Every structure is written in structure tokens, then in C-alpha cells.
């Protein structure tokens, strides 16, 4: 018995001694699908910086999946210190459960989106179907790949980009937009559940003539699946996608990680992280870095969700809720 107590004391001593010298901190970042490569690089850079400034070893754990599904998991108790999701609506859903302040989007610069992206087209080498802009997607014989907006954040951006395009044409109105998007989904043979699944369908399985995708996802696919098998087509007008980040207040407080979680999301705005974002094909917010990587990101006309749709709640209610416009379009077929 005595021996056991002694051993326990010794173990305790070792544990406490460890705290004095260097803490081992771990942070869980719950993110969406296409950010896997981005955060692998960000995490390495942040851990190195934190170590040099504070001497503590920080391990950042990642969980990736469809944005909506990930938000759901955090609500169900996935202990995320930080969420970095595809759209504000999903973080709002977490805020509604009281896990973080409702004004989370105002706590960081630029709508709490340290990087942006747009929606572009990925076509096969040589662009055999001659896809140049949105109208080409609904020509007869063109097959379009896009994931399901009910489950995928990226797909919702795709949907809104298409809607916004149609609305902004000369003489465009709600009816014309509806007709265009309805026609567009008639050209979709497979609705994957997530953005990465759709990319795999298009690139690996060779289905479809054009993939509507995040610009970062399209550039990454071009690099990873290489050999110049694909080309990117930037449409004349598209949406500015702002994937937001936030500290999950109640989890961070519970884990005692608020400081480091806060430092982590702020680090995303630093020049170092902005460059990592650009290298991983996200458009950096910093004008400096944007200028340096300008050749990678062709200029295009973009509109924001606020300009065309008000906000995510209105867009969600109008298009993606059960029984809303998207369901009607699919059932109408």
C-alpha cells in the first residue's frame, strides 16, 4: 500500500514538474472538407510560433467533414475549441445553442473570414465542351457536377453563385433565376454529399464535363491530380465566398484554452498565415499578399451574399430549408 502511495506521489511530482517547464496544450479545430491541406500547414506554423513565444508545446487536432455535419457534431458535444467552417450559417447554428456569443462574426476583422474564395468551373483538358460562362452549363449535352446543397456548404455557395448570376443579367428577375437554376440541376447526374466527394466524382471517376467548385478546391485538384488534366474557367460573375472562423467560447473556457484559441484565430490574419492561405489557393485578405499572388487568382466580378440575398438566414430559409426552393426544384424534375 505504502509503495503504491509513494508511486502515486512520484507520478504527481513528475506531472507537476512538467507544468513548470513546458505545458503540453492541445486544441481541437473542427473544420470543413477542403481545408485539410491548409490547416496542416497553418498548424505547423502556429505551433512553432507559440513554442518560440511561450515555450509550450501545442498540438492542434483536426476534424474535417461536411460543414453542416461538423456544426451538428459540435452542437452534439464534439469538444471544438475553434471552428473554421464553410459558411456563417453553420457557426450561427452553434451560437444558437449558446456555445458561443451570437455576435461572433464581429469579434474578428473582415466578417471573421481571414481568407476568401470564389466559385469557379473545373473542366477537362482543352475544354472540349467550350465552357466559358454560366450559360454554357445549361447547353444540351453538358453534364455538371456539384454536390448536394442540403448537406454541403460548398454546394450552397455554388447554388447562390448560379442564382446571383441569373439575377444580375440584363432583365434578370426571380423567375428567370429560378428557371436558370432549375435547368442547371437538370444537367447534374450525381449529387455528392460533400465538396471533396464531388471533386473525386469528377476527377477520379471521370463523370461529367464541368465541376462547379470552390476556387481553392479546383486549384488543389489541378495540382494534386496533375498532368494538366484539368483547366479552370472563371465565370464572368461569381460569388465571394467567405468561410468564417470562431472560438467556441464555452468549450475553450471549459478546457482552459481561451488564450491560445484566441491567438490561433488571430494568427490566421498574420502575414505568415496569409501567405500559407495563398499557397493553399485561398484568396488572402491582406492586400499585400493578394498583390503578390495576383497571378494565381484572376480578377473577376464578385458579389457578396449580403448584396444579393440579405444574409445566410434568409438564403437558408428561401432556398435550402426542407420544402424550400431547392426541394421544389428537385421534386419538379
Amino acid at each position, binding site marked *: 500500500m505504502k509503495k503504491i502511495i509513494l508511486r502515486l506521489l512520484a507520478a504527481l511530482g513528475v506531472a507537476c514538474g512538467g507544468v513548470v517547464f513546458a505545458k503540453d496544450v492541445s486544441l481541437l479545430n473542427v473544420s470543413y472538407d477542403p481545408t485539410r491541406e491548409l490547416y496542416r500547414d497553418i498548424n505547423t506554423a502556429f505551433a512553432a510560433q507559440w513554442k518560440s513565444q511561450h515555450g509550450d508545446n501545442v498540438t492542434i487536432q*483536426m476534424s*474535417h467533414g461536411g460543414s453542416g455535419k461538423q456544426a451538428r*457534431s459540435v452542437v*452534439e458535444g464534439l469538444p471544438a475549441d475553434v471552428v473554421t467552417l464553410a459558411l456563417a450559417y453553420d457557426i450561427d447554428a452553434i451560437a444558437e445553442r449558446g456555445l458561443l456569443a451570437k455576435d461572433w462574426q464581429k469579434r474578428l476583422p473582415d466578417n471573421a473570414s481571414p481568407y476568401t474564395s470564389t466559385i469557379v468551373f473545373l473542366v477537362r483538358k482543352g475544354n472540349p465542351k467550350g465552357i466559358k460562362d454560366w450559360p454554357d452549363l445549361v447547353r444540351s449535352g453538358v453534364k455538371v457536377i456539384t454536390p448536394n446543397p442540403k448537406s454541403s456548404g460548398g454546394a450552397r455557395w455554388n447554388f447562390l453563385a448560379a442564382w446571383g448570376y441569373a439575377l444580375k443579367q440584363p432583365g434578370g428577375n426571380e423567375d428567370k433565376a429560378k428557371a436558370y437554376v432549375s435547368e442547371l440541376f437538370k444537367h447534374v447526374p450525381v449529387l455528392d454529399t460533400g465538396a471533396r466527394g464531388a471533386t473525386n466524382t469528377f476527377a477520379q471517376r471521370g463523370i461529367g464535363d464541368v465541376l462547379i467548385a470552390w476556387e481553392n478546391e479546383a486549384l488543389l485538384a489541378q495540382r494534386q491530380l496533375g498532368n494538366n488534366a484539368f483547366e479552370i474557367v472563371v465565370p464572368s460573375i461569381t460569388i465571394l465566398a467567405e468561410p468564417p472562423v470562431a472560438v467556441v467560447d464555452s468549450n475553450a473556457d471549459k478546457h482552459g484554452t481561451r488564450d491560445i484559441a484566441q491567438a490561433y484565430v488571430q494568427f490566421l490574419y498574420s502575414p505568415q498565415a496569409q501567405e500559407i492561405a495563398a499557397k493553399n489557393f485561398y484568396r488572402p485578405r491582406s492586400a499585400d499578399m493578394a498583390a503578390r499572388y495576383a497571378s494565381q487568382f484572376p480578377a473577376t466580378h464578385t458579389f457578396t451574399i449580403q448584396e444579393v440575398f440579405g444574409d445566410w438566414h434568409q438564403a437558408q430559409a428561401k432556398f435550402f430549408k426542407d420544402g424550400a426552393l431547392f426541394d421544389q426544384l428537385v421534386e419538379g424534375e
Partner: protein
Amino acid sequence: MNAHARTRAIAWPRRLVHVALIALALVFLVMFLVLPLATVFVEAFDQGVKPYLAAIVQPEALSAIRLTLLVAVIAVPLNLVFGVAAAWAMTRFAFRGKALLGAIIDLPFSVSPVVSGLVYVLLFGAQGWFGPWLDQHGIKIIFAVPGLVLATMFVTLPFVARELIPLMQAQGSEEEEAARVLGASAWQMFFRVTLPNIRWALLYGVLLCNARAMGEFGAVSVVSGHIRGLTTTMPLEVEMRYNEYDYVGAFAVASLLALLALLTLAVKTLLEWRYGDEIPRTRPVDTRKRHGT
């Protein structure tokens, strides 16, 4: 026409049917089992042995392997105990609700694994029935190892019991009663009479249970939270790597899973070959045959 010629006339089409059936079975086997299995290994070694090994010794892969084994090591023995107890109750006692118990044991076979995972989220998730209580006491079930074990136990629950019940029914309880009459204690009877009688069926059940426990995807996917290196089992790791365009890595981990399955098969075959003469007495299939004739 004499009798001899008639049999020959019948023999020809019969042989044709024989050959056709065997060929059909072979084609099916090759198409649906051998080819996909071969693809796994071909893709895994697509870029040679070195990248294959490198993919497997990555810390995430190693932790996935460790977690898969850990979950199996907890879930399989628990299901072994439960399976024996359930089979015992079902075959040695008459009680009300016996049919219901039988149906409940079969439930995991008929329920989709995804649904069984969701059930645990609804029970133990932060918004679930027991969620707030668990949270107050700092107990983590969902998105942690206990949740993975629970989900795995649920889907593998019937394997042991379903293997034992028909056998124990066929064997009856005469030998056990004889042991008791001759003065054996309950435990002596169980270890010296019952267990030796059911050991082969038990082993089969455990092997099947283990194979399923290691390969389970759906239920585990729902309760895992997909935290890399922490709550990712091998099947989840395969999916993740595939999604990261790491095809060699995905198939390398998949090939390990396939190897585990082949190992299970090899163990089973080896035991059958080594103890072949003993097995007929304690295998449900063969006892049924004995009773049938």
C-alpha cells in the same frame, strides 16, 4: 432404348449443368471477391514498397491501428460474455419474453449501422437524454473511445449468440444434467462440460465478431467526430486519406484491414485442418445434419 443408354443420355446435360454452375460460381467469386481484393493491393503498391511502408508508419495510421485494436479488444470479450450468457438463457431456460429476447439479439442485424450510431448520439450527445448529466460529471462518451466501443458492441452483438444458440439447442442439456447429478458444481459443469462442447462454435463466433468489429464503418463514423489521431479507426482513416487525394495511403491502410480479414480466415482454416476430426461434434451445421438424417 436400354437402361444404359438412357443414363448416358441423362448424364450429358447433367454434366453440362455441373460445369456451367461451377463456372458461374467461379466468375462471380472472381468478379466480386478476388478482383476487388486484388485491386486493394495493386493500388496500395502502385508506387512501390517504400511509399506503402511510409504511409503505414505515419503517426495517424499507427494511432488508427492502435485504436482499432483497442476497440476490438474491449468490444469482443464483452460480446463473448454476453453471447454465452444470452445463448445459455435462450437454450436452457423457459421464460416469458424469450421470443422477444431472440428478436432483440437479432436487432443489430436488421438496423442500419448508421441508425445505431445515431441512437447513441441521441442518448449521450450534448443535446441527448443523458448529455447534460454526463457533461456535469465530465464523462465523455460520444466523440471519444467509449462511444466507439459502444457502437462497435452494438453492431457485433449477435455474432457469438447466433453461432451458439442452434448448437446448444441441438445438444440439449443431458450432459450438463449428468454432470450435476454426479456432483459437479455449477462452474465445474460449465468449464468441463458446456465449454468444451461449444468451443468451436464459440471460436467461430468470436472470429466473425472480431472481423466485423475491426471493419465497422457506419456506426463508428457517426460517433467518432473524426478527430485525426484520436478517434479515427482504420476504416475511417481509409476514407479520410481517400478524400485527401492520398490514394496510396488510403489503399495501404485498406490493405492492412484486408490482411486482418485474411488472417482471420487463415486462423479459421488452420484450426479446421488441425482439429478437423473434433469439429464435427461441436459445429452447429454438422449437428443439424446429424439430426436431420
